[in-house]
């Protein structure tokens, strides 16, 4: 279904709108708040300003200040208030303007939200969504370009969702809000304005299901979050060079959909992982380990990994592009894996 949506080749005769990701997110939150009075949104600029990236446009007017709450700049404090409220039966959505600032709240996310259920032997659950932009955007400098999706995926007790398309964003955010666990939900500054088909009617996408965004035969490209668009472009270019790449969009990092991933690699026998993370202790390295051990016999070549290079992000565009995974490095790695 989402594959069809992405490629806009849906055979459904119903007209499908094209909307921006920020609007898909706004629709997801609005629908869930209409459905469930326990859901509320809190964060910096989410109310009067309509969201730093306009993801909550109109929501203050629609729901009022009780449920769309402008917070002062105090991530630890408002994340913790969300966590406490979740323990007491509400279902908060906590927006971080970007996940760079979530580090001010990381003790609350890792040590309180993620562990409350284990420490209380299931007596407490913490149904909360932490969402916001993650990863580098254009030239934001070292402190605003962190990519923490794998970092959060390290922690048992958290669910980590990192979709790419407007369709996946909406369906997965709705599922995240309904989930009874703490969910960390990654978006991207670079793609809030990206348009894609999103049906008018309600739909959900299950957490923990990867999606084949392009079918291919020669190599499996694995990615998630906004790098999906980079990888799809690269797959197109590879096709022109005679290499047929299958693209697996993980969409959820924890729990991982091993089945879809392994099935694809078992089909192509070659795999390149593209991640906006430093390679050391990264999620991609974990994926590579899984593939290399659990389906070793299916591989015709070692798993390739394309990562952010090992330095904090410099400001200059001439340097930023060097650090981030790019088309050239992906193609080079694919050719090495396919040679």
């Amino acid at each position: 279904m989402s594959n069809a949506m992405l490629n806009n080749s849906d055979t459904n005769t119903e007209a499908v709108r094209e909307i921006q990701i920020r609007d898909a997110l706004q629709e997801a939150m609005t629908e869930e708040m209409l459905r469930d009075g326990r859901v509320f949104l809190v964060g910096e600029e989410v109310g009067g300003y309509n969201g730093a990236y306009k993801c909550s446009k109109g929501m203050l007017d629609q729901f009022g200040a009780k449920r769309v709450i402008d917070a002062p700049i105090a991530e630890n404090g408002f994340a913790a208030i969300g966590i406490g409220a979740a323990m007491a039966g509400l279902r908060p959505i906590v927006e971080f303007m970007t996940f760079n600032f979530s580090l001010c709240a990381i003790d609350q996310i890792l040590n309180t939200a993620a562990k409350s259920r284990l420490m209380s032997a299931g007596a407490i659950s913490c149904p909360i969504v932490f969402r916001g932009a993650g990863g580098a955007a254009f030239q934001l400098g070292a402190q605003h370009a962190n990519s923490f999706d794998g970092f959060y995926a390290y922690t048992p007790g958290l669910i980590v969702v990192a979709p790419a398309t407007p369709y996946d964003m909406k369906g997965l955010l709705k599922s995240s809000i309904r989930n009874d666990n703490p969910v960390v939900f990654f978006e991207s500054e670079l793609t809030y304005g990206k348009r894609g088909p999103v049906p008018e009617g309600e739909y959900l996408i299950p957490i923990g299901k990867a999606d084949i965004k392009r079918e291919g035969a020669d190599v499996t490209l694995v990615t998630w979050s906004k790098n999906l668009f980079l990888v799809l472009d690269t797959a197109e270019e590879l096709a022109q060079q005679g290499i047929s790449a299958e693209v697996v969009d993980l969409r959820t990092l924890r729990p991982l959909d091993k089945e879809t991933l392994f099935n694809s690699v078992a089909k192509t026998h070659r795999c390149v992982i593209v991640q906006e993370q430093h390679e050391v202790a990264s999620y991609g390295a974990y994926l590579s380990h899984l593939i290399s051990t659990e389906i070793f016999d299916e591989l015709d070549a070692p798993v390739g990994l394309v990562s952010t290079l090992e330095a904090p992000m410099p400001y200059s565009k001439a340097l930023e592009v060097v650090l981030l995974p790019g088309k050239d490095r992906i193609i080079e790695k694919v050719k090495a894996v396919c040679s």
Partner: protein
Amino acid sequence: MEQELLSDLYKQMLRIRRFEEEAARLYTEKKIGGFLHLYIGQEAVAVGALSVLQKNDYVMTAYRCHGHYLARGGSARAGMAELLGKETGCAKGRGGSMHFFDIENRFMGGWGIVGAQVPVAAGLAFAEKYKGSDGVAIVFLGDGAINIGSFHEGLSLSALWNLPVIFVIENNQFAMGTPLEKTAPTEDLSIRALAYPMARETVDGHDIFAVRETIFAAAKRAREQHLPTLVEAKTYRYRGHSMADPAKYRTAQDVEAWKARDPIKVVGETMESLGMKGLREQIEQDVELEIQDAVRFAEESPFPAPETALDYTYV
């Protein structure tokens, strides 16, 4: 009525004292692992404060949590079993000494990162206000917690959003082994309330009736006006920071001075002066039976099954 109240306060404080003395013994026998932070000496704060709250109020505290758990009505059996890491514990052996839970009594834990529980408890209060209930939240913290950011963010947001929460600093004079004069520029800790601002009170934590009065007023303010209060209760722990701490950073005279005003002793003597000597002795016997029963129960209980090691990670 007064006799009943005195008896109850005496019993609750004594339960905590005896529970922890037995815990210390079991710790030295290596039946309890990890850290064991004893509340001995501070009992009047938890018992006094929780004796004036309602059933629908939330209670949260830090890692020195046995006293608050018991004072809120937690079972000694489940508490002792938790210390021994047994499946019958109040957190089925997953929490341990620092992480007691008792959701039936709205006792929301036992948290181990200093100060982190402060804004979380504000979130409990937020939820009660959001739901339109008259419940409030009370959160206990040590004097060592008042310099960390989460304390200030919790107080700041509670004042800004008018949350029905009571913050109780149990000033036992030491942040682990560091005396208060090295961590705070003034002995008046509730003065920090002025910055946010919110109501503040300072109370003698060894005077259980003063604690009751102060917390009752704070709870009323929270319940009726949705306003937070910062309370400083001056108190003392007779034991070290944890069982690993011989507490060589203070003099025996200091400890004896506080013990001379020991709240359990004071309430017990008050009972005797009111002709309640028999009742006092009866309570002591009852508590002893309860604690010995709890130890036996804990020792006889099974450990969690190895195949359940990953349980309770996700819903």
